[in-house]
Each structure stands twice: as C-alpha cells, then as structure tokens.
C-alpha cells in the first residue's frame, strides 16, 4: 500500500511538471549555492594556510630569538649556527617529521654583458633550499617541478631557478650567468656567479615578482654561512597542519633550549604562533561559519517558502481530492511524500552540480594574478575551492528538510478545510 502511494506520488510528479520542475529547480539551486559557497570558502582558508606553511612559516619554524624579532628584514647576521647538529637532534627526536633548513636573503641580481660589465640588474629576493637531491623534501614542499615554466631543475652546482616574469624583465636567457651582489652573514659585500637553469611561476604574486631559488649549499658559499641557516622548517609527513600537536612540539623544544641570557638561542614557533596566524585562522573560520550559516538559513527560508507556496497553489486540487473522499491524513501524508521526493531529487541534483563545479575549481582554479599585481600577501593568485566531507551534506540536508518542513506547515491547512463548504469553494 505504501509502495503504491509512493509510486502514485512519483507518477503524479513526473506527469505534472508544475508540481515537480519548478520546486526541484528551486531546491537544486539552493543546494548548489550552499555547496559552492562552502567549498570555495574552505578552499580560500586552506590555500592561505598551505601557502604560508610551504613558503614562509612551516608547520613549525626554528630561528634564533633575535632573528625572530627582525624576521621581516631577513637578518642573516643573526642566523642559526651549528645547523647540522641541530638537524640531527631534531630528526632523532621527531623522525615522523620533515626538517629542512632555509636561507632567505635579499640583494641585487646583476646580468653581465659580453665584457663582464652590468647589462641589466634588479633587486632580488632569494631563498636557499635543499635541492641537493632530485627528490629532496623542499623540491616537493615548494612544488618546484610543477612551478617550472622554462628550462629544467638545477642539477649542478651554482644553478638556480628564477621567477619567469623577473627573467623576462631582465631579458635573462636559460644558461646565462647572473651575479648576486649581497651581504655575507658578517655583513661584508659579496658577489657570486650563478647560472640560470630554469624559470618558475608559483601563482603567488610576491614570489613571482623577483625571486631566485638556489641550492642552500651555494647560498652558504655566497653568503659565508657555513653550517648556518636563517630558518629550519618542520613539516608533518602528510603535510596536514595540526595546531595542537605542533604547538606542543614547539613548547617542548623551547623548554629544552631555553637560555634567557643567550640572544642567539634557537626558538621554535608553530604556524599558529607566527604573525598572529592562529588569531587570523580563528577569525577566518568564524567568518566562514557565519557566512555559510546565514546562507544556509536564507536558503532554508526560501525553500520553506517554496513549499508553502506550492501548498497554497494546490488549494483547489486538495479541495477536489477531499470532496472525492480522500482522507485528510492520507492527503497530508501524500503531500509530504511528494515533498520528500522533490527535496531528495532537487538536493541530489544541486549537490551533484555543486560538487562538480567545486571539484573543477579545486583542480583548475581561476587565475586572478592580473588583479593582484601589487599584492604582498603570500597566497596563491589562482583561486581554488576545496571539497570536504561537509560539502556532501551542507546543501543536501537543508534542501530536503526545508522543503519538507515548508510542505508540513502548508499542509496543516488541509485539516482546517470544512467538507460542507468544499462544493461552494469549488463552484467559485
């Protein structure tokens, strides 16, 4: 009997498009927008954290106390010394993490003419990373192979990667010499010849402007920084940031190395502790939750209203069915079954469409680099969404429940209809 009623309702919905098409489209649109909004906001936050971690903060980062105070100025005269020993200790104590030293530096990149005189030059931001092995962790962490635009990965001593737009600006060809004019760890002027192996584009405006990436051993030679590094980055093996765990590791490290009299003592900070990232993340997450909640609520009200409208629109039909002897309870139940069918169909369609668009945005993204020419924020200029488990039900549940609840409220009117007045109403 129940199956027959369900079949009857579905047949009715399919044959009467005014009862199915518009409500399903409404529910689909609501579910679609909920999924897309949630996925895109989640993608924005994740991208912000991921970009910061890979290029700037690590999941944890070790610096000297004084370097940390002036970190924006890349003060390599205050860098960590005895890095080899420290790395050994870290790898022994936390074998489940990736530890990698980095040196950030500034200077002038000078391109010579055939006589060795300056042909062109420009200020450069450099990062010394471990590229000694083809599969070094930093090559993967910084996605260097994916970022390659021209040329190849450095394979020999003194070979570097340079941001593609910077190379074009300096009219620098693959294989040409570029001389770094910078300061050693002790402040002395230094010059060092590098060879351009390839050009890269990260899709992050601050990095794509004028960056060079060199092997840390070459940078150590250039800047007189033997066994030293500005920063040691620590990452979890799965590259997923766990704030509680990282803060715990940082606190334990700082307790072990605490020496208030030594301004060069190493200090470890988790991603959340750097540059108010934790507060920023909390704020962004709360903002995302508020925006998504408001949107889901608004969509629920719209869908509920659609359910109500649908009930009112079918006022005459309900009257006829009552007049023909259908029980009020049976009629109410059949309307709810119909709305469940519409809710499920619309929500499934909307969620599927939302997931498809979100997956496409997750894989391909939309490039906003032309609008972010002067951006100083270290985040991708390609905007991507992120599909999470929540994406699968954030649109589906409100879609089903709101349309059903709307119908339930609208259906209450059935019980108020007086059988004695039905024929008079129908005459009208």
């Amino acid at each position: 009997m129940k199956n027959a009623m369900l079949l009857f309702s579905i047949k009715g919905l399919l044959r009467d498009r005014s009862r199915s098409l518009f409500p399903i489209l409404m529910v689909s649109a609501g579910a679609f927008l909920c999924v897309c909004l949630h996925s895109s906001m989640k993608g924005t936050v994740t991208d912000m954290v991921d970009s910061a971690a890979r290029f700037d903060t690590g999941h944890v980062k070790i610096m000297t106390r004084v370097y940390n105070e002036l970190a924006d100025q890349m003060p390599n005269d205050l860098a960590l010394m005895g890095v080899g020993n420290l790395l050994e200790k870290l790898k022994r104590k936390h074998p489940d993490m990736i530890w990698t030293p980095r040196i950030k530096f500034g200077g002038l990149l000078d391109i010579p003419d055939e006589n060795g005189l300056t042909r062109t030059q420009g200020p450069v931001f450099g990062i010394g990373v471990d590229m000694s092995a083809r599969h070094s962790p930093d090559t993967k962490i910084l996605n260097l192979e994916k970022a390659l635009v021209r040329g190849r990965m450095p394979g020999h001593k003194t070979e570097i990667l340079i941001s593609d737009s910077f190379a074009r600006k300096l009219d620098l060809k693959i294989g040409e010499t570029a001389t770094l004019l910078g300061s050693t760890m002790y402040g002395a002027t230094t010059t060092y010849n590098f060879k351009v192996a390839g050009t890269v584009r990260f899709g992050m405006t601050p990095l794509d402007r004028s960056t060079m990436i060199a092997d840390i051993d070459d940078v150590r030679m250039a800047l007189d920084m033997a066994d030293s590094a500005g920063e040691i980055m620590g990452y979890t093996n799965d590259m997923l940031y766990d704030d509680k765990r990282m803060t715990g590791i940082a606190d334990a490290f700082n307790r072990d190395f605490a020496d208030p009299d030594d301004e060069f003592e190493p200090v470890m900070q988790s991603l959340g502790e750097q540059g108010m990232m934790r507060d920023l993340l909390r704020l962004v997450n709360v903002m995302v939750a508020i925006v998504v909640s408001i949107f889901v609520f608004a969509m629920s009200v719209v869908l509920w209203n659609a359910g109500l409208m649908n009930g009112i629109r079918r006022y005459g039909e309900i009257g006829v069915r009552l007049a023909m002897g259908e029980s009020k309870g049976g009629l109410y139940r059949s309307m709810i079954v119909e709305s469940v069918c519409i809710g499920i169909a619309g929500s499934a369609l909307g969620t599927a469409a939302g997931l498809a668009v979100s997956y496409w945005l997750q894989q391909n993204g939309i490039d906003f680099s032309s609008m972010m020419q002067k951006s100083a924020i270290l985040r991708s200029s390609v905007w991507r969404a992120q599909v999470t488990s929540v994406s699968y039900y954030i649109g589906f549940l409100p879609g089903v429940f709101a349309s059903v609840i709307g119908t339930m409220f609208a259906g209450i009117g059935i019980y108020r209809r007086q059988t004695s007045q039905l024929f008079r109403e129908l005459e009208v």
Partner: protein
Amino acid sequence: MKFIITFFTVLLLTASALYAENYPSGKAILDAIDRNMTSENRIIVSKMVIHGRRGTRTIRSKTWSEGETEAFTEYLSPAREKGIKMLKSGDMLWTYSPNTDRTIRISGHMLRQSVMGSDLSYEDMMEDPELSRHYKAAVTGKETIDGRPCWIVELTATTPAIAYQSRKLWTDRERNVPLKQELFAKSGKLLKRLELKDVAQIEGRWFPKRMIFKDMLKKGKGTEFIIENIRFDQEIPRHIFSKAALRK
C-alpha cells in the same frame, strides 16, 4: 615706562653684541674645518674594526681619493675580501670582485647598504663633502670634548642631493677638527654618530687617526676606522679612477 623700555632695549643690544663677540659665525667655522681637513687628494691605508653582535672583524684597505668626486679603494685583508675594489666617480659607484671577475654598478637602495658589515653605508663612502659648500651653519653653544674646548655648530643642508639633511658638530676651537658629529635625517631622526679621536698633526694639518662610526639604527658597538698611514696632495695617476683599474 619710557625708561624701562630703553633699559631693556639697551640690555638686549648689549647681550646680542656680547653673543656675537663670543660666538664666531657658522660659516667661518665651516671654512676653517674645510681648510684643515680637505685636500686636493689623499692616499690612506686604514683598517676598519667592525664590532658586530657576533664578534669583531678587521678589514684593511688602501684608498686613493681626489676632491669630492673621485675615490678608489682596494681591500687588502682578510682573505675573503682581499682584491675587492671599489670605484667612485661622480655620483656613480662600482665594485669589482676577483672571485666572480665582475664589475657591478651599485645604485638605488643598495647605496644605503652597509659597507662590509660596518656602520658606514656606500652613501657615507661616496660622501666626503666640503661642509661649507653643502650646509649653512649656526653656532649654538660651547662644550668640552675629551678635554678640548669646542663650538657646537648646527648645520642645515643647502643642496638637496645630500645624505644627511642636518648635522650637529662639536668642533675643536683651536684645531678646527670636529671631534663629534651627529647626522640626522630629514625627519630629524638621529641616524649616525661619529667620534673623531687621536687627533695629531700630519703634514701641517690636524687630523684624527681614529674615527668611531655608530649607526644608531643598528645594534652593535659601532665601527672603528683607524688610519695607519695618510699622505696628502700626492701625484695620483688619472687611470686609477677608471673602470679599467678595477680589473687590474
């Protein structure tokens, strides 16, 4: 009432007259400093002792300079810096490194960078101004520095392309050597402090053999510039101040 006004007018005029009598004009002091300190050319062998946050380094160099516009410096030690040369010609600065065999022009923001990690910037190196040509001066007081009576002279730049908008000098009244200088930015912020020590008579001039530079924006104990040997008004071949000399 008339009497009171006349009394105060006379008092003011007397005070002005006394002030004028006691304090020489700023211009006269700057001219005297320039006459004593500047020469047609000079050759200096010096060492720079840089007291950084992580220790002390000593760098020796030899400099040939002519007037305000030409200077050539060759670094003599330590090994990492040996053979590095710098040439200043007009408002241009080049550096040559034997390691890379490159001659690189230093310009823009790099001119404000520290030279060899010292408290001197390339701009400081490029500037050796005749004070009377670039500043107007006013004497504002007197003080004793290292047992020597000094005039306190405040200088304000009259030419725009100068690294320091204003300076405050404590200049030895007899020897015409500024024993202490404070160098200020346009905003009035103190950027550098310079102390001149061990003043001795060299070839008829009073000249400091040790200078202590302190970049007030940097932590550290400053940089000592010690003159080991100085000769004035020598025969310096013109080719020294050419780019070709950098690679020789």
